[in-house]
């Protein structure tokens, strides 16, 4: 998903906040019945018999979310156990999101009780970003009677870690340039994406803190963990290019590449297109989506830019299905003899994948099988580990 054209402000640093409602379900219950505030409260049970949320009093007894209900009751027999009122929680969650949307159009709700907001460029309207975050925290407390922890940083990763830093009612700001220093002393498992199995492997290598991880050369991490290693290295340095994407905006997947030198070499141009197509299709499959429309973008050396699209009869997620279309679009769209500066391939008209295949195209499931195997290899050994003979390496 390219940032161009989405109207994002250009700024030296982004200002992204992660906002996390404290003990959300339990706090809503306390609003309904204020006498609960003095007592340990556990919301949960139901079909799976686990704790959804415990208030901070219950947490002192060692109760935490996802714990089996039976264990929770043993740890804290005097707790008030409530089955949960999910319709009411959804109402609160919507009001929470509505408050955020007053401050920026770029609000990404991650779950019922947490969201990212991109406040880059809002200073002109609302004053310093830190003050805006304080205002949001105050309004959530006053208007919804809920506690909230805020992390403000230059990207999603650091904002998320920051919001978790001083819960409940936390307020942590990580200034531009201080990301790596902020993360360095934290246990490495505080990095999102470091789960139990990865943690065990890191511990084997003597990694305890995020700082330890940041000191390992990136190429060694890539050797050990493939593409995950690259991501890990970036995260340890506090870098995260992900954008705050409102869910409904996930409408296209695209990639483009600018040549080192403008070119008219058709073989190079076409193999680059195949490579870009492979890449967007792989991201399409990773998102468990299928696409109906494919777009090719050509920018010539004089910056004149043409795009051309084709819509398939039905949505697909197979590289091979798009190769032919992309080449054909390119050949019809390339009307000028100028050298080409940039090529792009985009997929849109996205729908959740169905994988219902077609009797008239019985090759397709076999080709998809190949794609998925290639995806698995790339996941492990990196994006350029394997590619089709005709597809140009970047």
């Amino acid at each position: 998903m390219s940032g161009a054209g989405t109207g994002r402000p250009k700024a030296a640093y982004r200002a992204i906040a992660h906002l996390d409602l404290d003990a959300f379900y339990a706090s809503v219950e306390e609003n309904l019945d204020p006498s609960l505030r003095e007592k340990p409260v556990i919301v949960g049970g139901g079909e799976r018999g686990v704790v959804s949320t415990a208030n901070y009093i219950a947490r002192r007894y060692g109760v935490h979310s996802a714990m089996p209900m039976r264990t929770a009751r043993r740890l804290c027999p005097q707790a008030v156990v409530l089955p949960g009122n999910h319709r009411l929680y959804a109402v609160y969650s919507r009001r929470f999101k509505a408050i955020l949307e007053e401050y920026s159009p770029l609000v990404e709700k991650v779950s019922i009780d947490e969201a990212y907001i991109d406040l880059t460029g809002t200073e002109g309207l609302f004053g310093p970003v830190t003050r805006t975050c304080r205002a949001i925290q105050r309004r959530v407390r006053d208007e919804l009677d809920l506690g909230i922890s805020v992390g403000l940083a230059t990207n999603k990763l650091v904002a998320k870690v920051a919001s978790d830093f001083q819960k409940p009612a936390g307020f942590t700001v990580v200034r531009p340039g201080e990301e790596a220093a902020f993360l360095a002393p934290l246990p490495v498992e505080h990095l999102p994406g470091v789960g139990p199995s990865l943690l065990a492997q890191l511990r084997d290598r003597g990694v305890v803190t995020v700082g330890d991880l940041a000191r390992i050369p990136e190429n060694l991490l890539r050797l050990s963990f493939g593409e995950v290693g690259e991501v890990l290295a970036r995260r340890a340095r506090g870098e995260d290019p992900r954008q705050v994407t409102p869910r409904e905006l996930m409408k296209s997947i695209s990639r483009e590449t600018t040549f080192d030198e403008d070119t008219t070499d058709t073989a190079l141009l076409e193999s680059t297109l195949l490579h870009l197509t492979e890449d967007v299709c792989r991201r399409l499959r990773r998102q468990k989506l299928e696409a109906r429309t494919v777009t090719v973008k050509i920018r010539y050396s004089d910056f004149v830019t043409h795009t051309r699209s084709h819509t398939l009869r039905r949505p697909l997620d197979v590289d091979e299905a798009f190769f032919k279309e992309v080449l054909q679009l390119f050949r019809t769209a390339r009307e000028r003899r100028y050298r080409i500066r940039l090529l792009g391939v985009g997929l849109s008209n996205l729908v959740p994948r169905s994988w219902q295949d077609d009797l008239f195209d019985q090759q397709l499931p076999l080709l998809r099988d190949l794609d998925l195997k290639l995806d698995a290899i790339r996941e492990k050994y990196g994006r350029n580990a394997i590619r089709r003979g005709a597809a140009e390496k970047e």
Partner: protein
Amino acid sequence: MRIAAEKTDLVESLTIANKAVSSRSSIQVLSGILLEAKTEGITLTATDMEISIRTPLRGRVEETGAVVLPARIVTDIAKNLASREVVIEQRMGENQMEVRSGESFFMLHSLSPADFPQLPVFPLDEGFSVEKSAFLETVDRVASSASRDETRPVLTGVLAHVTQNTVKMVATDSYRLSVMETPIEATVADKVQAIIPARSLTELSRIGAAGPADVIIIVPTENQVLFEVGGVWLISRLIDGQFPNYRQLLPESFDYEVTVDKTEFLEVVRRVGLLAQKNAPLRLRFSDNTLTVSAESQDVGKARESIPVRYEGDDLEIGFNPEFLEAGAAAVAGPTVHLKFISPLRPGLIKGEEDDFLYLIMPIRLSD
């Protein structure tokens, strides 16, 4: 124009004609039914330009003439009348008509018969007849596989092939394909083949199922076909184009074969299929003389049920759209269903023992 008819006869004929009334046409007269009263009898005619239906109405012609009835309101009135006899009258030169029955009186705006499209003329003596029961059974078991996607017109049709002693029909929406060949007595000279809209055949089947007639008369022309059954005419356009070569889709051999009890299999598929919502596949797992059917829908839950089957050999797990699977098994005649597979990525075949029916179905890839 004035006619008198029994309420039940009127309701029956209106119900038949209504199947061709256009529900969303911009041509107003097509939302009506043409009633023609001639000395030889009364007929009702409706058309949506794809299908036209002409049905006789039993009754008494007291004064000849014609009127276009507003279809929906007249049908609703007829169904709700209290008395047995109904009189419909339009006085000369008026554009309103009356419906009278017992103490009830309705005055309705009518449309002009002059605006109603003429039905095409068919060379009735060039037609041939087929056995009704065999023809309609073939329709019923095949037509539901046709596509509803108007962007591929050919697939919204059924390929029908009639010779003197067989009728063969093929339909596919590209996800599944039904083929059935049935012995039949037909007075056709040589052989006839056409792509007929599935909807036309389905309506024909509904009309034909009700009446006592034994034969259907078929009059094909270059781009239309007329069916006559029990005095009712159904005229349909034919679909122009090349029906896909379905024979090359049928695999020559299969590696896995299982026989299941049809009733038991259908019940399990319906039960477990309740948990295959929002495009989720139904999983069939064959292992160790057991077929396990399972499904899982995000945010809803999951289900599983096993049936003992005679199955030896390598394990196989394959996913299908539950509706397609159910439709295929339900269309098989007889008490058992044969399931044949090659691999989870290749089409599967469903067939029975008792007749020449095949159902080819493309699987859904499973995610692990």
